[in-house]
C-alpha cells in the first residue's frame, strides 16, 4: 500500500485559471507615459483594459475579432481574405500602432487567415512596436471559442468566458509563427502556468524584413514540427 503522501504527490496538475503573464507586464511597463501610444485590441472591450491604458496618453482601437474568426477561416480567395481582414482593422494610413493585444485569438485562425491578419496588422504597426499573444503549447485541446481576457491588477490574465466545449489546438510552434508572421520577430517567449506560451513579437524594420526574405529564399526548405 502506498503512503498517502505519494498519492497526493501524483495528483493531477491543475493549471491556474489566471496565470501570471510576465511578458504582458514587461510590455506595459515599457510604455513611455510621456509619449502618445496607439493600441490595437483584437479582443473585446473591457473596463479593466481601459483602466490599464487610461494611465497613458493613449488611443485604443477595439476590434473584438472573436466573432469574425470563422468567417476569416472560411475565405478561399486571397484577395477576399485581404479585404475581409482590412474591413476588420482600423484604416491603413492612420497613426501607426505601438501595441497589439492578440490574447489567444491566433490559436483559432488557420495558417492562411493568421498570415493575412498579421500581415495587415504588421502594415499598421510602427517598426519596433510590439504584439502580445498567448499560444496553446502543452495541451492538444483548447476551448472551442476564443477567450474573453482581461489583465488583473497584478498582471495575471483572466479569461472571463471560458467555454466547456473543446476543439483541437493547432499548437503553433515558434517556427510556424515566424513563417506566418514575417513582419514580426519573436522578441521573447515564455511558458505560462496554464500551459500556454506567452509571446512578445517585435515589428521588424523594413530593412530587417527584406534581409529575412532573402535568407529564406536561399535556405533549404525544412519540415514543419511533427505532432
Amino acid at each position, binding site marked *: 500500500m502506498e503512503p498517502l503522501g505519494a498519492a497526493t504527490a501524483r495528483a493531477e496538475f491543475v493549471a491556474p485559471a489566471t496565470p501570471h503573464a510576465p511578458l504582458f507586464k514587461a510590455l506595459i511597463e515599457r510604455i513611455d507615459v510621456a509619449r*502618445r501610444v496607439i493600441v490595437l485590441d483584437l479582443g473585446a472591450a473591457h473596463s479593466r483594459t481601459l483602466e490599464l*491604458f*487610461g494611465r497613458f*496618453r493613449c488611443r485604443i*482601437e*477595439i476590434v473584438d475579432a472573436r466573432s469574425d474568426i470563422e468567417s476569416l477561416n472560411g475565405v478561399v480567395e486571397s484577395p477576399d481574405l485581404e479585404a475581409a481582414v482590412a474591413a476588420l482593422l482600423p484604416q491603413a494610413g492612420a497613426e501607426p500602432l505601438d501595441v497589439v493585444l492578440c490574447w489567444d485569438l491566433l490559436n483559432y485562425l488557420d495558417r492562411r487567415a493568421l498570415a493575412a491578419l498579421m500581415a495587415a496588422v504588421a502594415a499598421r504597426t510602427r517598426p519596433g512596436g510590439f504584439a502580445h499573444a498567448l499560444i496553446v503549447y502543452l495541451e492538444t485541446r483548447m476551448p472551442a471559442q476564443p477567450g474573453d481576457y482581461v489583465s488583473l491588477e497584478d498582471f495575471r490574465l483572466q479569461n472571463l468566458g471560458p467555454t466547456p466545449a473543446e476543439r483541437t489546438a493547432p499548437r503553433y510552434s515558434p517556427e510556424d509563427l515566424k513563417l506566418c508572421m514575417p513582419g514580426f520577430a519573436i522578441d521573447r517567449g515564455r511558458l505560462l502556468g496554464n500551459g500556454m506560451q506567452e509571446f512578445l513579437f517585435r515589428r521588424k524594420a523594413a530593412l530587417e524584413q527584406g534581409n529575412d526574405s532573402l535568407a529564406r529564399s536561399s535556405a533549404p526548405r525544412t519540415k514543419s514540427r511533427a505532432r
Partner: protein
Amino acid sequence: MFERGKKDEPGRTIGPRQGLEPEPAPWTETARGDAPGREAAVIGRSIQIDGNLRGEEDLRIEGDISGTIQLHNHSLTIGKDGKIKADVHAKVIAVDGNMDGDLYGAERVSIRKTARVTGNIVAPRVSLEDGARFKGSIEMDPEAVDAAVAKRQPAPRPAPSVAPTPTIVAKPAAVVKV
C-alpha cells in the same frame, strides 16, 4: 418656437442677464439612470427622425435617429430602445441602446452594459461597463481629446451687429432775404 416651461421649469435659473444661457443646475443622477443633468426631454420609441437634431436642453432618446445630434452644452441619454445612426456631440453622453456613429463628449461618455456601440469615442472621461459590446476607437490622450472637442464646439455666436448710426449733417438754414 416652443418655449415650453421655461419660466417655471425646475432646475432652470434665469439670471439677471435675461435671455442669456441659463445657469446649469447641479448634477443629479435621475431615477432612470440617465446622463446626469436637468429633467430631460424625451424622444419616444415610436419616433423616427432623419436629419440634424440640435437642442439647448438635456435629451433622452428611445426612438430611431439618423443624421447628426448636437447638444453641445447638455446631456444626452440613448435609452435601451434607442437606435442611433449619427455622430453625436454633447457635454455628457450615456448609451444604453444601439449606437452606430462617433461620440464626442465634452466631459464624459458612459457605455452601459446593455449598449451596442460601433464608432469612435472622444471624451476626457470614458467608462465602459462589462457586458457592453463596443467596436471602434477610444481616444484617451488628453491633448488629442481637447483638440478634437474644441474643434467640434460650435463657434461663439457673433455679437449682434449694430446698425450704423445715421450721420446727421446740419445744413445751414436757408437764408431768405425779404
